[in-house]
Each structure stands twice: as structure tokens, then as C-alpha cells.
């Protein structure tokens, strides 16, 4: 989809009523073209020092984010803080199990986040379904629907594990290997097909930007 030379094919937005299609973006996401290495390294360092979490608790694991805000764990010392809107966030923490209904909001929020953006998936449920392995309404692995940079295993992972996960994310960002956003742009059609396979009432734009 992300043909850097030609103009990308516009999205059909077939989920929207015909009269509303013109109101939404029809361009697919594009890959990020990195700058010169020394500049990009500096930017990656800066990005890793300022991780802003989207304040969207998507499952029971979101309860483990609360202690991080308190003085005992204090995530602010690592440059991590919550933001109220996807437009200001760079990290999306998937807090455990995601039902299909939540997945729809996850996709929408993820696509609305500005790049560079990263995804931390915590809990067994995001990895292989966890205790919801036989649920009729809960997806079993989140990386089929959005790209994931760091997994934090556990049910639930402790706040210490979350901090370790964020440190790992920082390391990945500094190494320039947090490629989730580019992966999403590159495999956009596959991700979108997977999303539409489980979200049966697709009534939003194909790319929510």
C-alpha cells in the first residue's frame, strides 16, 4: 500500500454511508522515512525519554497502571505520563483481554495516535488469549490486529514488571527497532482484513485519521 513513488490507492471506506465518505480521510498510512542516522539516533533518544501513555484502560490490566502514578512506583521519573487523547499520546498500553467491542475502539484509537507510536501489550490475554482462550467474544492475540512492540507477560503483571517493560521499550526505541508503526503501514491490508474479519459491524472509516 505504501508505495513511496506513486500515489497510494485511496481507501473505499465502504463501512460509511455514501454521503459521509467524503468527510473522512481516504489515504492509507505511510511508512516513516528516517532521517540521517545521527539525527535519527538523537530523535530516538528524545522519544524514549518522553513516553506519553494513552489513558484508555482496555481491560482489567489497566488497574496495574494506577500504582505507577503513585509515589511508590512513580513512572514520571522515567518520563512516562498519561494523556487524555490519542492525539497527544505515543504509547498505547493494551491492558489485558480485548473483546471485539473493545478491539473496535482500540483500532480507532491506535490509528488516531500520531507517530511515532508504540504499543505495549500486558497480560497473558494479549499474548495467547490467557484465561479467555475459549471465549466467544474475546480475541486471542492482539498482534493480529495492531502491531505490538513489547509484551509483558503475567496475569496480572506487577507494576514492577510494567516498569521493566517500559525500560525494554525505551531500549528498543533507542536502538531504532520500534518499527510497529511502519509494520502497520507496510502490512495495512493484512491488518485491516484481520480486523474486519472479527469486527462484523464495521461502520467507521478504513483508516481513522
Amino acid at each position, binding site marked *: 500500500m505504501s508505495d513511496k513513488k506513486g500515489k497510494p490507492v485511496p481507501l473505499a471506506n465502504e463501512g460509511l454511508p455514501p454521503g459521509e465518505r467524503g468527510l473522512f480521510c481516504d489515504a492509507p498510512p505511510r511508512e516513516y522515512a528516517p532521517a540521517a542516522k545521527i539525527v535519527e539516533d538523537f530523535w530516538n533518544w528524545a522519544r524514549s525519554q518522553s513516553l506519553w501513555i494513552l489513558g484508555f484502560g482496555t481491560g482489567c490490566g489497566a488497574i496495574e497502571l494506577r500504582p505507577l502514578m503513585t509515589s511508590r512506583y512513580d513512572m514520571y521519573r522515567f518520563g512516562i505520563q498519561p494523556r487524555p487523547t490519542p492525539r497527544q499520546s505515543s504509547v498505547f498500553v493494551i491492558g489485558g483481554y480485548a473483546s471485539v467491542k473493545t478491539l473496535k475502539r482500540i483500532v480507532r484509537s491506535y490509528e488516531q495516535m500520531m507517530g511515532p507510536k508504540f504499543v505495549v501489550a500486558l497480560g497473558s490475554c494479549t499474548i*495467547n488469549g490467557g484465561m479467555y482462550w475459549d*471465549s*466467544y*467474544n474475546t*480475541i*486471542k*492475540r492482539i498482534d493480529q490486529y495492531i502491531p505490538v512492540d513489547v509484551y509483558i507477560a503475567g496475569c496480572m503483571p506487577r507494576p514492577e514488571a510494567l516498569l521493566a517493560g517500559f525500560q525494554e521499550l525505551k531500549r528498543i526505541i533507542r536502538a531504532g527497532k520500534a518499527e510497529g508503526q511502519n509494520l502497520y503501514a507496510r502490512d495495512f491490508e493484512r491488518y485491516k482484513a484481520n480486523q474486519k474479519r472479527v469486527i462484523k459491524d464495521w461502520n467507521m472509516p478504513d483508516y481513522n485519521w
Partner: protein
Amino acid sequence: MRELADMLSGRYGAREWHDQRKDLSSVTVDASKLRDVLTWLRDEAGYAHLAFATAVDEIERKVFRLTYTVHNYGTAHGILVHCEIDRDRPVMESIHRLWGQAWTYQREMREWYGIDFPGSPRVDEEFVLEGWEGPPMMRRDFDSLAYSDATYAERPGRETRDPAAYMKEKLYPEADA
């Protein structure tokens, strides 16, 4: 309580009165009498609050058992009023004119069990599920595992172990000896 039980059985043929706790009793009535029973309990006996309504799928007996919980704030006593409807023809009279909130419970039962309540407001709209295309998922003949396997991608390599045996093997291997 005995008086109330006699009154209900005399007027409406209610049966199987059972005092579960000091403040909670249950009784079974015919589905055709349910609305009359609830009206009488609400208007004459002081059970003015509909606390809950739900269904139980008794697949072995081929019935849905509907349970309506009413509460009397004067005596702090509640009654579970049960009735049964045919599982193959799941239609029940709506009580949304007795209690305004009843349509929410009825909409829930419509989505989860496929029980219809003709005339109930918005009964055919989605309740908790979005875009659900399968059969009503709280029916006991719905195979959740098969649906999940067919619908959601699985990560290979998932293993299941017996927790007791696995802990013994990992933590106390010498216990076998």
C-alpha cells in the same frame, strides 16, 4: 409469609413456595399467570421494586426458566418469581408497563437467550454485543470453544498442564522418590 404463600396459591395457583432466607423466598407460577402475579404483588402486597429479571437455560427439560425478583421495602423481603416457557418457542409476555426498567432486562434476554418479548421497546436492538451474527450465546447448546477456534486467530505453542503435577515436577521433584 405463610399468608402470602397461601394467597398466591389460592389466587394464581402458585406452587413450590420456598423460604431461602429470612428475607428471600421463591415461588413458581405458570407463565400465563406471571403478569397477573407481578401486578398483584406490586399493587396489593407492597413488592413495588423489580430488582432483577433473568433467564436460565434448562436444556435437559427443554425449558427456559425466567426469574423475576421483586422487593418489598416495607418489610425488606424479596421474592423470586419463577416461570417456565417452552425452549422451542421462546416467547414471553412483556412486563415493561409494570416497571419501566423491565425492557432493559428483556432486551438482554432477547440477545443472550433469544427469548422474544413482543411489544417491549427496542427489544430487537443490540444490547452488549456489536455486530453479533452467531446464535444467542448464553444458550447452553452454543459451543463457545468451537466458535472461538473458528473465529479468532490462535498463537501456536500454547500448552496446558495440570497445575498440581507441574508444580510437583518443578518445585519438589524429590517428592516422587
